[in-house]
């Protein structure tokens, strides 16, 4: 029985530029930490080596810090062999990242930058399909079919690219034949590029990224433990959880302030909030008071409990009721201003939206003034 870990799409150095500073640093650090978690998982499951199917780095030139951190973390797991493959994010350009890596990597780290069979163990050969460019139109694994390995040796494939067109309408690049494993006589074809886990056939699988990095991705944050028994037998493929942060995206439609209770409860029940990255879109129509309350509850509460809350209130509309206005004042200047703004808010277009925002601000400022007055 031979065991190894199949992982991919580490994308070390991903900037997370849209996240707030603290979240960005945490998310970047978590990607590097995934190396340690992978090493631990490999040891736990008795894996001899780790195949990284491309996109080790987020870009072809990640900068020295990320480069050094990655190497030092892999080198500290000296009992494991790390086989790294250039992917579309970090293609192997001459004199670039991979030349440096090949020159400076510790002994247990192998850069599979050439499409030639690589002896892994005594009777295991790895056929890597490194990418030299961000996009190529030919199948980088085409050479597997005719690759020569000693008779009787078992063959593993390592490639980065899509089996099918991921996007809609995009020209398919780096496309890999879906039946490559069978055609090239591979025991297993380890694929990268797809950030979620996905099994193509009994011997072909995407493992997904070990640390989730975006919203809307299912089954990510894992690596695959691959166990190969005797030749001809299908490998056993087991997902191993690796990731720290969970990314969720959801739309909550509210018709009253209390409607927020259920999704909030569900959210905290499911996971550790501090490791949650959430994109919540609120929709619906509330009174002005309710909208302010909902917003405050989320911004002052949930936003601080989770790692990063990406909150969108664009579709949560407020309909200022007489009650809302009465709360601002029964009469007087503020009430008059509120009435004017309510009338303005009824108009379509930007001006209306602004008037609504101004009314909400008035409501909030008024509440604040009241709180200060009460204190």
């Amino acid at each position, binding site marked *: 029985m031979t065991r190894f870990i199949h992982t991919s799409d580490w994308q070390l*150095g991903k*900037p*997370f*530029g*849209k996240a707030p500073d603290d979240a960005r640093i945490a998310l970047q650090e978590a990607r590097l930490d995934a190396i340690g978690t992978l090493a631990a998982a490999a040891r736990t499951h008795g894996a001899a080596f780790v195949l990284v199917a491309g996109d080790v*780095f*987020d*870009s*072809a*030139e*990640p*900068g*020295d*810090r*990320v*480069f050094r951190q990655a190497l030092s973390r892999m080198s500290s797991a000296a009992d494991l062999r790390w086989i790294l493959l250039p992917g579309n994010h970090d293609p192997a*350009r*001459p*004199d*670039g*990242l991979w030349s*440096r890596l090949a020159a400076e990597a510790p002994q247990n780290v192998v850069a599979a930058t050439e499409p030639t069979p690589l002896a892994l163990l005594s009777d295991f050969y790895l056929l890597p399909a490194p990418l030299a460019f961000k996009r190529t139109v030919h199948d980088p694994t085409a050479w597997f079919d005719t690759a020569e390995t000693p008779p009787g040796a078992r063959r593993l494939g390592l490639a980065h690219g899509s089996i099918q067109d991921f996007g809609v309408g995009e020209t398919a690049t780096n496309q890999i034949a879906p039946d490559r494993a069978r055609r090239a006589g591979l025991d297993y074809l380890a694929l990268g590029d797809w950030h979620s886990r996905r099994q193509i056939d009994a011997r072909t699988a995407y493992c997904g990224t070990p640390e989730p990095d975006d919203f809307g991705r299912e089954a990510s944050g894992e690596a695959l433990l691959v166990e190969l028994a005797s030749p001809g037998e299908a490998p056993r493929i087991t997902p191993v959880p690796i990731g720290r942060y969970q990314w969720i995206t959801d739309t909550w439609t509210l018709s009253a302030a209390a409607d927020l209770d259920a999704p909030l409860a569900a959210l905290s029940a499911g996971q550790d909030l501090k490791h949650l990255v959430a994109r919540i879109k609120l929709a619906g129509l509330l009174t002005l008071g309710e909208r302010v309350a909902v917003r405050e509850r989320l911004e002052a509460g949930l936003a601080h409990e989770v790692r990063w809350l990406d909150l969108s209130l664009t579709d949560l509309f407020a309909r200022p009721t007489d009650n809302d206005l009465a709360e601002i*004042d029964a*009469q*007087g*200047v*503020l*009430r*008059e*201003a509120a009435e*004017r*703004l309510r009338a*303005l808010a009824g108009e379509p277009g930007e001006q209306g939206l*602004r*008037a609504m*925002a*101004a*009314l909400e*601000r*008035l409501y909030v*400022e*008024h509440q*604040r*003034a*009241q709180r*200060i*007055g009460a204190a």
Partner: protein
Amino acid sequence: MLIREVTIENFRKFRAPVRVAGFSRGLNLVCEANETGKSTVLEAVRAAFFERHGAKSERIKSFRPHGDEVAPTVTIVFEVAGETWTVTKQFLQHPSVSLIGPTSRHQSDEAEEKLQSLLGFARAGNRGADDDSRGALGLLWVEQGQSFILGAPGQTARRTLEDVLAGEVGAVTGGRRTVAVVQAVERALTEFLTATGKPTRRLLEAQQAAGHAEQAFNEAQAELRQFEEVLGQLEAKRGELRRVVRDLGDAEATEQANALRADLDRARLAAERLQNNQLLFERAVGERARAQTQVETRVEERARLELAAISLAQAQAKADEHGQVLSAAKSAETSHAQALEQARKALTQAETARESAVRAQLAADRTRALQAAFARLDRCKAITDALVVQEAIIKAEAIDAGRLERLDQLDRAVLDARSACEAGAAVVEVRLEPGAAEVRVDGELLRGDLRRAAAHPLSLVIDGVGRIDVTPPATGEAAAVRLRTAEQDLGALLAQLGYGDVSAARAGARRRREAEAEHKTLEGRLTGECPADSALGLAAGLPALRAGLADVTRPAPKEADDAALKAGALAADADLQAARAAEKAALGRRDGSAEALQAAQLAEVRLAGLLDAAKTHHDRMTSELTAAEQQASDEALGEALRQASAAEALANDALTAAQRAAEGLDPTVLARRLETTERRRQSLFDAQLELAQTLARLEEQAKTLGAAGPAARAQAAQEAADLARTNAARLAEEAVVLQLLKTTIDTAQAEASRRYLAPITERVAPYIRRLLPTASLAFGEDLRPSRLTRGGLEEAADDLSKGTQEQIAVLTRLAFADLLLARGKPASLVLDDALVFADDDRFETMTEILTEAASRMQVIVLSCRTSAYRHVVEATRLTLER
């Protein structure tokens, strides 16, 4: 609100208790001299209500009489809403307060709070009561020297007033909360925009950050491009070096160079040979061409000689032919000239015949004219005879129209004079009976009856009877004289004209008139018979006619044959025309034949010339050919040509062979190719060295640039720039929203203040008008009098005189008090030494207003001017009781 009684002890100058009691509902006057302590009483009243009993501020301490550690104490009995209350406040030592009402009693802080709620003021701050805490009553109880301050009411007072105003107009600024909100919005806005709307602080920072991020992104992008360019160059240069090395080690290239050298040698040899053969061939071609030319020249010469002979024969024939033409032309010209002579003679005859025909016709015309002229002359003779007769009549009758008129006048004068005479005279009427005696009137025998006006003395002699004289009255004498004169004038005229009486004269006048008319007719006929006669050259008139015919014999009256004459003239015309035409035709024919003759003569000269030239040419040709034949015969020339042609064919073969040998072996091209090959090899060596250097440099660059992680940085910078942009846009939007909110609140505030100030403006207006007719007062939002409008001119309230300011301040307070009363709020007015700057008129008006106000509220006036208020009889006068 009514103050009923005030008791003070240990308060400033009052160590012993002092009481002021008996305050009435209306106007109260406390008139005391200076230094009596009026102002102290008011200070004590304000302290008792507004200051906290436990306060220990400097002001409270100053309540103590100088140098005494005693407790200032104030007790006030007052009424609010019909209930009587007593407040006693002791300061500093054992401070205490008690408030006793009709049904309750309050101590300490509870009492303070009850007081506040009763009178509508706020809790005093740590530093003691101030304008803000005292409320409306603080505003209405004016201390000495404060009455002329046109200040804004303090916060509490204003709120009270605003509440009151709100009750009246249903709108209010919203009080403290509004202020807080407005301030918060303004504060928030200052984080984004300056007062002039320019970005500042957060917005400016965000915009600058976005700009910087954008710049950083551009820089990172440039760096990345530079890095990728380096990598690209590196790859390109590597490829280049590989190709250079491969090319340098290429054995084939060396072989190719050697082959080129061998080819070049061969090519040069072949080229030399080719050049020689070319020369030989060209020479042979030249020889052959010359021989050929000679043969061809001989043939041409023969042909030309033949042609010359033909030309000569033709010229001769033409010259012969032309001789006949010339003689024919000569004879034609002679005969045509004779014909012309004859035609001219015939023409002269025709012209003579025509002239004589014309003359005959003219003579006939003159004869006819003469006959007519003589006939006219005969008729003229008859007319002149008749004229003579008429002239004789005219001469005989001397009475023309003028004289006839004169005659008529004179005749009328006689008649007039006569009737005048008879009018004044007696009438003598005599009627004789038959057989009566003879009666003589003025000697003349009367026959028959008599009736006569006796204008003159008249005598009747009757025979046998006697004489009767009738004498007219003397008055008729003048008329008788006039009658006599008239009768004399008439008689003279008739004598001059030769007529016996008037009627004869009138008949003579008629005859003369008729003769004159006849004479005129005859003269007309005479003129008609003597018109101008162009045929005889006569002017109009009888003398011309007579003179014209004087020397001419009268032609015999014979008929001329006009028709024959006319026919003769026409025939002569026709003959003349025909003769002219014949002459012209003969002339034309003579000229035509002369021209033809001239042309024939010219042609003869030309043909003779041609014939000469043809002869000369033919002779020269003949002699030339003979000379040439003597030099080389035709056969010799043919042989030379044959030999030259054979030599040319041989040379041509040799040239073709040489060309074939040189084909494909261009020494220039081969030399160039060889040179290129060698140069390329050299440049490869050079390139190899240069590439090695470039590569080393680029590798170093790639290493340095790559270490910085340009791709990662570019992506991070892009995301950062996006974020910064979004952030700046978000803040800008927030600024716009805040601005909108602020503008809206400002608008609402302006609107509200305009509305809620109206009641105050209305209430103060009648007071102001009494003091300053035509003036009106406007208030600011803080309820402070702001502008006075007088006679259309606006003045800032602060610019008014101190006196006017004080009066306005008092009236404004009065208006506020009215407002409070109207809403059932406690109100009373206390003035301490107010109106000191008022002149007598104004003072009187003000006291009137205050007196009227006292019917609605309690008014307490503290004054040192006893006499000034003497006229105010309605007032309750009080004194300080020690």
